[in-house]
């Protein structure tokens, strides 16, 4: 049941939010204006983030922590400020629980290795059928190393998780539950707080993959009640090469470090070493200080606009897109029908035009979408299609981006109907 749609426009639908602060959106593809509908793959960056990045390299560039001088201290402060800002932004109780990584994928691999020593052969890890490969393959590798069983919460035909199965899936041997907050294919927003709550009652650790929700949905680590939360900066209007693992410091204490090297140690002998405190223990080597220095500018923007306003805007764009795609007819649209129950993206299958052909033709219209399995091959097998076309939205997306998408699909259908 569609609740909102063309009729429930919020004001921002026509203009996007803060769109003029994103320089790349002014570019063209051939002679067409760009319509960027691939924010779920990576978001565009506001001017303020680029300025902060340039400022760092022009004025503060130095390595962190090891320095006893003004420059290194400014760089260290910029780096640690990012940690504090992220903690405050996502509602983490303590900045010492925020590990700075190179992205969500690295955060999840850090976890899958870090928990290994706590698990025994036969233990179970519960995932879902809608996971991105980043929240699947690291656990498969762990399962193989350690002789574990993977279990999966099924996806219902309406795109929601079948949580009725949860009691039977949360078994005696279940040690970890890891699930996506907002699916990068279905859009489904999962009830992560509920899952975390039911897991905690049984002493099971919960991991939330917030790669698609950070910067898009209001996020509150403490309220979710999970043990670990991961996301990438680059999908939340920040720079590439930066991500986070958020936890309580005590939870981090339980993890073994994955990478060894400088900065993560305390005492090093030739034969053995001891680790530094958390979170430094997980940050071997020179971090991406420049990216960390720049990301707070993205958080500033998100907080300036307000997470609820961004959410309302993306829901309005999604409702409009769902309506328009529905009107085209003949498409299979995946995920919840209600835009309130989903993040800012729509994936679909057009039996008349293969997703690859569609995305090539859309490119001629200046419309950037993604076609493929979106790093979720098992989910696509569940859906029964080799690939889908995905349009995904950000705070800057506006009605004419969707209109151009629809026009492009019409054109593609014309081409293939000739």
């Amino acid at each position, binding site marked *: 049941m569609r609740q909102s749609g063309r009729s429930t426009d919020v004001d921002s639908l026509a203009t996007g939010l803060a769109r003029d602060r994103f320089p790349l959106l002014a570019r063209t593809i*051939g002679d067409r204006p760009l319509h960027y509908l691939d924010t779920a793959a990576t978001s565009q960056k506001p001017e303020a983030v680029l300025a902060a990045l340039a400022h760092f390299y022009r004025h503060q560039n130095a390595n962190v922590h090891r320095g006893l001088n003004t420059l290194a201290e400014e760089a260290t402060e910029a780096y640690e400020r990012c940690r504090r800002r992220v903690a405050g932004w996502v509602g983490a109780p303590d900045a010492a629980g925020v590990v700075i990584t190179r992205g969500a994928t690295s955060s999840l691999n850090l976890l899958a290795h870090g928990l290994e020593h706590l698990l025994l052969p036969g233990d179970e890890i519960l995932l879902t059928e809608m996971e991105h490969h980043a929240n699947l393959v690291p656990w498969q590798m762990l399962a193989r190393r350690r002789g574990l069983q993977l279990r999966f919460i099924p996806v219902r035909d309406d795109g929601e998780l079948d949580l009725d199965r949860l009691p039977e899936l949360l078994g005696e041997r279940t040690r970890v539950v890891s699930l996506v907050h907002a699916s990068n294919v279905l859009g489904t927003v999962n009830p992560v707080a509920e899952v975390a709550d039911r897991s905690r009652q049984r002493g099971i650790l919960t991991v939330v993959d917030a790669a698609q929700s950070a910067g898009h949905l209001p996020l509150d680590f403490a309220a979710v009640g999970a043990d670990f939360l991961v996301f990438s900066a680059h999908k939340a209007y920040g720079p590439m090469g930066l991500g986070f693992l958020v936890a309580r410091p005590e939870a981090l204490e339980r993890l073994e470090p994955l990478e060894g090297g400088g900065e993560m140690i305390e005492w090093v002998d030739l034969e053995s070493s001891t680790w530094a405190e958390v979170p430094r223990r997980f940050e071997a080597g020179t971090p991406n200080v420049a990216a960390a220095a720049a990301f707070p500018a993205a958080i500033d923007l998100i907080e300036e606009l307000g997470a609820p306003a961004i959410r309302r805007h993306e829901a309005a764009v999604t409702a409009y897109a769902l309506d328009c795609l529905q009107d085209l007819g003949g498409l299979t649209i995946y995920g919840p029908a209600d835009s309130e129950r989903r993040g800012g993206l729509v994936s679909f299958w057009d039996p008349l035009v293969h997703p*690859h*052909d569609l995305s*090539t033709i859309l490119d001629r*219209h200046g419309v950037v979408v993604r076609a493929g399995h979106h790093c979720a*091959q098992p989910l696509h097998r569940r859906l029964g299609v080799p*690939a889908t076309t995905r349009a995904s939205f950000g705070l800057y997306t506006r009605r004419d981006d969707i209109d151009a998408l629809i026009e492009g699909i019409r054109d593609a259908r014309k081409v293939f109907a000739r």
Partner: protein
Amino acid sequence: MTEGPQDALYREVVLDHHRHPRGARPLERFDVQASGKNPSCGDEVTLQVAFDGDRIAAVGVLSQGCAISTSSGSMMAELVVGRTVEEAAQVAERFKKVMHGDDVPAEVDLGDLEALTGVRKFPVRVKCALLPWITLLDAILARRQGRAASDRVMDVTFEERS
């Protein structure tokens, strides 16, 4: 809503092959069956090849995928049946070179395949166009090595450019 840009890639010849793919039926009798997959998009092709001595007598092209891969497979069926294995391999190698943007003597005639060269801009789509041809080279290799089947998964970034 304005008219979409005239599309240089989806020319009539491509679409015609896509809509009416040549050789798109299983063979009753064949010597080698080779299949290829492109995991990045799910394109799949299975080739059945019947040889008559050194010549390709018949090809069955069973494609599942986008218009580029199905039409490329269809064009292949038209181009190679009746040719010697040597000649077919040459066409495949030339097409690979052209699609990879390498210099190829102008006199090389690729027939309808020329219509597919517009995808060179997108390496992922180049894979689509090449899938049937690389699978054909696999079939030829299998034949030479006396095997009856072959299987291959294509990689998107680093393909066999040699």
